[in-house]
């Protein structure tokens, strides 16, 4: 895991290594100060040697200035290293996600990918910075201060052998006891947020069933549980400071008593006693810092492993190195296609499908949920790869084409479609970045979107909000259609793409497509028979198999499923007047 993360350090390797180096230098100088100070007091102050005081004083100021310099250098290096590391990490994540196929995206859902790219990266970045600064600082401080203390008076320094394990053990105990409770705290936090979120979304349901009190009770139960866990965990954590103080005070007393005895016996000087007290503080502080670093790193471990999971994900679909760059025509062939979303041939959702579609044909596809309509058409632009068999476009296996070329020739309007922040024109130009204004108008006209765009004050420059939430469902679908038409594709696939468009407008769209794009192969998936009844051929899918093929009249005569759907729609059928 660590190796994978470290790979993102790259050009910031120098800063990453310099940061602990500078920190160590800073600490080294910091630790020499008390030692020289002892000398200043013993050989200067106590004996009244002014000259010595001034010389040592200058040396000490020089040391402090050097230490300051190293401190500033370390800060710069670590700021740059951690910001750079986070930048590369985000970049690596984002790049890998751009290469993901649909099945990669299905496995790691969009919302979890977003969390990894935002919150998780921020957490790991903080831990990284902590590691290259504090991770170097506290052990170095501990080590150097220990060495100094032993050099000054090794007998007195034996005090630490008693106190340091006491403090370290206490801190470890606190971490060990509180960590599992903190995990429960985080979990309860998630539950609390979930309740709030569900209430915000479902407030109409809550209010219409008069369940406000019920929800308040549900919330306070979780809120109280959160309180209990949090208090329990924090009670342990709140022991850190007193523990630290107890250790410091214990050292102070022991050193005072033993030190005084040694001074009296002539084994030690007053200056040395003072510097021992300073070293005590440095040693104990470094232990506390170390425990903080450990907590921080263990908290960010979960975030790190989530990030690595995305970095490790291998894109399941990549285009061939020198793919075919020309799609001959809009003909499609399915040869013994077997398909499973999991890639496991034993539980496929499409069986042995054979199908030939001529260039320029209009095909309607109908069938219940889970019958494989969407799966069938998504194989054509290689959004998924077949598990067995082959799909041919323009007479060639789709896997031979350059991916961009294939997808530019095959336009698919997805069921769950979306627009992006920007103007209508910018959104439409996703289909063709170089499209002229008149081309935009042409495509919007075909999709019957021009009438409402023209009514907007800013027309094609009107702003679309994230996800296209400021236009109605029907308008959004028409914009998505226009965007796809701008590709001037050889094959056009509409996956339930006009479900929110009213029936009269839908008929006009079909008529316009027939008139303006006669050479384009069109595949139309629909729930309503009225949307596909005048197609050249209609395919009825059931449970991953083709149940019947033919024109509307033929199927009505020969296909039971088709007849059933038709009857239900004309007798008790759809009266959809959304627009």
């Amino acid at each position, binding site marked *: 895991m660590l190796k994978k993360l470290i790979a993102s350090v790259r050009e910031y390797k120098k800063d990453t290594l310099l940061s602990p180096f500078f920190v160590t230098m800073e600490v080294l100088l910091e630790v020499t100060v008390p030692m020289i100070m002892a000398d200043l007091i013993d050989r200067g*102050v106590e004996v009244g040697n002014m000259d010595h005081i001034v010389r040592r004083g200058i040396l000490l100021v020089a040391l402090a200035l050097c230490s300051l310099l190293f401190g500033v250098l370390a800060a710069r290096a670590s*700021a740059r290293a951690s910001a750079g590391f986070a930048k590369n990490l985000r970049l690596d994540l984002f790049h890998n996600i751009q290469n993901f196929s649909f099945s990669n995206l299905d496995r790691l859902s969009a919302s979890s990918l977003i969390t990894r790219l935002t919150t998780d990266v921020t957490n790991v970045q903080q831990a990284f910075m902590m590691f290259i600064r504090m991770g170097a600082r506290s052990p170095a401080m501990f080590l150097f201060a220990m060495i100094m203390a032993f050099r000054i008076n090794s007998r007195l320094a034996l005090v630490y052998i008693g106190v340091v394990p006491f403090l370290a053990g206490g801190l470890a105990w606190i971490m060990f006891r509180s960590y599992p409770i903190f995990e429960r705290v985080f979990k309860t936090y998630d539950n609390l947020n979930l309740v709030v979120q569900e209430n915000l979304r479902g407030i109409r349901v809550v209010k219409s069933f008069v369940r406000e009190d019920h929800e308040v009770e549900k919330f306070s139960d979780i809120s109280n549980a959160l309180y209990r866990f949090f208090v329990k965990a924090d009670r342990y954590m709140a022991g850190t400071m007193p523990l630290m103080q107890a250790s410091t005070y214990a050292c102070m007393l022991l050193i005072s008593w033993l030190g005084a005895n040694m001074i009296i016996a002539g084994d030690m000087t007053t200056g040395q006693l003072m510097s021992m007290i300073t070293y005590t503080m440095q040693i104990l502080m470094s232990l506390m810092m170390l425990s903080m670093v450990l907590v921080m790193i263990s908290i960010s471990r979960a975030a790190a492993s989530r990030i690595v999971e995305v970095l490790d994900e291998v894109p399941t679909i990549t285009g061939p190195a020198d793919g075919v760059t020309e799609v001959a025509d809009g003909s499609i062939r399915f040869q013994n296609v077997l398909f499973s979303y999991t890639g496991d041939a034993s539980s496929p959702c499409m069986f042995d499908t054979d199908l030939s579609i001529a260039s320029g044909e209009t095909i309607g596809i109908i069938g219940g949920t889970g019958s494989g309509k969407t799966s069938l058409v998504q194989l054509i632009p290689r959004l998924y790869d077949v598990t067995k068999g082959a799909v041919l476009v323009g007479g060639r296996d789709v896997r031979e084409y350059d991916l961009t070329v294939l997808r530019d020739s095959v336009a698919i309007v997805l069921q769950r479609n979306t627009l992006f922040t920007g103007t209508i024109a910018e959104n439409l130009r996703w289909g063709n970045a170089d499209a002229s204004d008149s081309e935009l108008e042409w495509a919007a006209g075909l999709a019957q979107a021009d009438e409402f765009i023209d009514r907007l004050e800013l027309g094609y420059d009107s702003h679309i909000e994230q996800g296209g939430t400021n236009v109605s469902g029907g308008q959004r679908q028409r914009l998505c259609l226009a965007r796809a038409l701008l590709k001037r594709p050889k094959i056009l696939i509409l996956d339930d793409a006009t479900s929110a468009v009213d029936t009269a407008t839908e008929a006009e769209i079909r008529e316009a497509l027939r008139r303006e794009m006669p050479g384009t192969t069109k595949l139309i998936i629909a729930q309503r028979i009225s949307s596909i009844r005048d197609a050249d051929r209609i395919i009825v899918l059931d449970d991953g198999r083709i149940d019947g093929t033919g024109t509307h009249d033929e199927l009505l005569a020969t296909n039971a499923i088709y007849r059933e759907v038709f009857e239900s729609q004309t007798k008790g059928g759809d009266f959809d007047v959304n627009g």
Partner: protein
Amino acid sequence: MSMGRGGGRHNPAAQGRIRMDKESLRTLRRVFAHIGDGYLGRLVLAMGCIVVSALVSVASALFLRVLIDEHIVPILLAGSRDLSGLASAIGAMGLLYIGGVASSFLYQQMMVSISHGVLRDIRNRMFFSMQRLPLRYFDTHATGELMSRYTNDADAMRQMLSQSIPHVFSSLLTIVFVLTAMLSLSALLTLVVFAVVAVMFFVTARIGGKSANYFSKRQKVLGDLNGYVEEMIDGQKVIQVFSRESAVRADFEDRNEQLFEHTDLANRYGIVLMPIMGNLGNIQYVLIAVFGGMLAMNPSFSLTLGGLASFLTLSKNFTNPVSQISQQINSVVMALAGARRVFRLIDEEPEEDLGHARLVKTDGQGDCRENAARSGACWAWETTGENGETRLVPLAGDIRLQGVNFAYETDKPVLHDVDLFAKPGQKIAFVGATGAGKTTITNLINRFYDVQQGRILYDGIPVQDIRKPDLRRSLGMVLQDTTLFTGTIMENIRYGRLEATDEEVIEAAKLANAHGFITRLPDGYQTVISGTESELSQGQRQLLSIARCAVADPPVMILDEATSSIDTRTERLIQEGMDRLMEGRTVFVIAHRLSTVQNAQAILVLEGGRIIERGDHDDLIAQRGKYYQLYTGMRSV
């Protein structure tokens, strides 16, 4: 959108200057009022402990002087080996230390229970208030923004209570105590300390100001990048369909580079303060040692070696709290901005309910044939007449709208002069384009919103006179956008009537045609579903929401028929379920199906907030108006 992303989009630091103003002080007072409300004793105890612990730390520094001047030096001078005085001094100090550690322990424990307790109270109060807000509030506030009050804002408040405020308090105390002790040792050396502290203030102001500035810029850029990532990843499949990967990548790279530059600057200025402060502290230490050494050599300054040792330790204790205070005050101010948002939510005006009529169970008094036939229970409205006498009106389900006008925003009227009536057991269908006002009418009947002109009568009683809980209990709703809650299927259906038995729940599921698919799930009715993700299909969720309504068994129903993306078979199950649910009830239905409109007693065609046609199916077909157009428009294709 899933929560827990946070990502700094609502981070208070991103929202401008950090300054303690009147508004912040008022909020701070209110926070303290909350602490005083139930935690006063603990707070006083904690404050007392802080005083003790600060005193002990000063005493500890002063002890060095006693140790050196009063014990070590005299013993050395006297050449005696009598250590009993020293032993008792150390013993006394030991006792003081024990007191110090104990009070520090107590104060930490108190702060834990105060901060979490206050936060729990505030959190519960916030949710309680939120539940009582009118629907308008939810329609006009973004979910993410409200969520962040429970996450970011509440968390900042907790940190302020548990850390920043006690820190500021103890730092102030320490400064006062240490200053007094230092002055008592040497006024001249204290001047040296002041000089260094002045430099520290200068540096903190310069660098700290820059750092805050860069930090808030960085938060903004981070928020923008996170927003961009969110949008792109949500639309990742579309990006691939249009082969836009490289364009998006380049765009991301630009924004990422920008974030890097801002983070680098913000961090650099943020971190650099630490070594600067630390080393300025060291320089101060050296200066004191040098000057102090000179003073100690000259007896006229009455500074002893022990005094110098104590002073050196005190000076360290002085600079730390000084740099602490400025940092902590920053975070207090930021937390107060969050607290203000939290209090604003708590103070929000709750949904108004001046109704007095209540729904009561009667035992055959009055005429209750209508509803008794269906559920066996007999309900009536209990209202108070003008002369004060109580009167029972049987719950029948008769609803009338008279001259209703309504606008969500004052200058954009949505309904114009709507008149309609539904007699008990009748089915009223609304037909019309999106935005014609269908949903608005249903929003007015259950008083999610209140009419601005005209009135709505329910069994002859103006709806404003009915208590909202009772009104809504008598109305069932099945919405197109089905909301379920995390929990078992059983619990989700029972949401309609909490006291329903398991049998009644299953009965309702059967009526709604949901029983079949539920029993096919591995855990049946005990299957846990989550409210936000979808283990169930849209159609199955719809079936559950029908069952939920069926278990409530209301006399009046408001239905929004589902439209797209449900396959024909499930749709038929839903239709059957809905049809059974509608039987014998007054129903307002936003209709999408031919069969629904065909057997409706009245079809209201809405356009631009007006009822433009009304009548039954045959009437409207004969009128050859809009309805005819819509109807034949469908047929002609």
